[in-house]
């Protein structure tokens, strides 16, 4: 009798597990086009929206701080610092999120890459981990000490993110519209024409 209950329990457990796995509607399909498009979108957001030097220099520019500190009353200084803190936190959180997207793409994509180089993959993994850690640290610094507390670290983080973007760009280069031209009017073995 005890054995029967045990087997029934295991059976129900397996059924529940299969049901839960089958209902995972958001589970990504590894190597799907959706992942490539999402990674491409993250890359564009980083390169064009979050990492342009002009924007970073403006957000963390001390000239505005000096202007407000020297010439403005306390309530304006408080408002300015609160606004810059909000913007700098928003910047670092979005950088982290987009880097995380790129990392997920690389992790999934590398499984399909035949000529995988172990040292390159390890270096890339360390770069991603370092960058994500730096983003978390910056977030904490901005939160507790304000947006002007770590200018050197902001530059280092931005430079590291730009380097990772360049690496990712190579992986996603085939999604550029200009690269499609080289396939135009060529046929595949199944006679499909681009």
């Amino acid at each position: 009798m005890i054995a029967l209950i045990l087997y029934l329990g295991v059976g129900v457990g397996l059924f529940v597990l299969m049901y839960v796995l089958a209902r995972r509607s958001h589970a990504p399909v590894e190597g799907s086009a959706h992942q490539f498009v999402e990674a491409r979108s993250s890359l564009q957001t980083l390169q064009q929206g979050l990492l342009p030097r002009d924007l970073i220099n403006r957000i963390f520019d001390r000239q505005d701080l000096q202007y407000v500190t020297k010439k403005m009353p306390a309530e304006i200084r408080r408002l300015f610092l609160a606004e810059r803190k909000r913007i700098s936190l928003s910047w670092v959180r979005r950088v982290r999120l987009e880097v995380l997207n790129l990392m997920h793409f690389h992790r999934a994509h590398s499984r399909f890459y035949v000529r995988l180089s172990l040292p390159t993959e390890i270096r890339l993994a360390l770069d991603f981990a370092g960058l994500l850690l730096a983003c978390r640290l910056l977030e904490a610094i901005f939160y507790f000490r304000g947006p002007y507390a770590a200018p050197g670290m902001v530059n280092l983080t931005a430079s590291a993110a730009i380097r990772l973007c360049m690496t990712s760009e190579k992986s996603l280069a085939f999604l550029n519209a200009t690269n499609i031209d080289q396939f135009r009017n060529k046929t595949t073995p199944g006679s499909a024409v681009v």
Partner: protein
Amino acid sequence: MDSLPNRNDVLAVADDVRRRTLAHLPMALERMIYLASTRDYNNGLYYHQGLASRYSEAAACEALADCHRESFRELLGASLEDLVQQLQTYAESSGAITVDFVAAWKELAPYRVAVPVGTDPLAADFVFSNLKVALAIFETRLNPRWPASSPE
């Protein structure tokens, strides 16, 4: 509207807009607000009757969008001090009573609908944030006690 205008036509229209119209608007803030006002909020397309009749509607639309993005980038790069100056000049040139102008801008934040389509949310948020602070500084300056109440 006819589709896909020739790039050279767009550049010619943009040059025309810069020489004839934008040259009279020296500040990025007023250029951005003027160019946003040529956009139809129902479809996001820019329209300028004079330009459309001289060139084509599509070329005029693209050129106005280019100039709008350009003025936004300039505003994004402006320092806070410069932005306060721009805001003050714009308020004075608008013809509105300054106190009413400040109240309306604080309440309605009209600049929020004046950014070009496709602007990164962070860049837009940064400009809004700077304009909010600039407006607060401008309001402080209207205080008769200014600058006596300034730096502690």
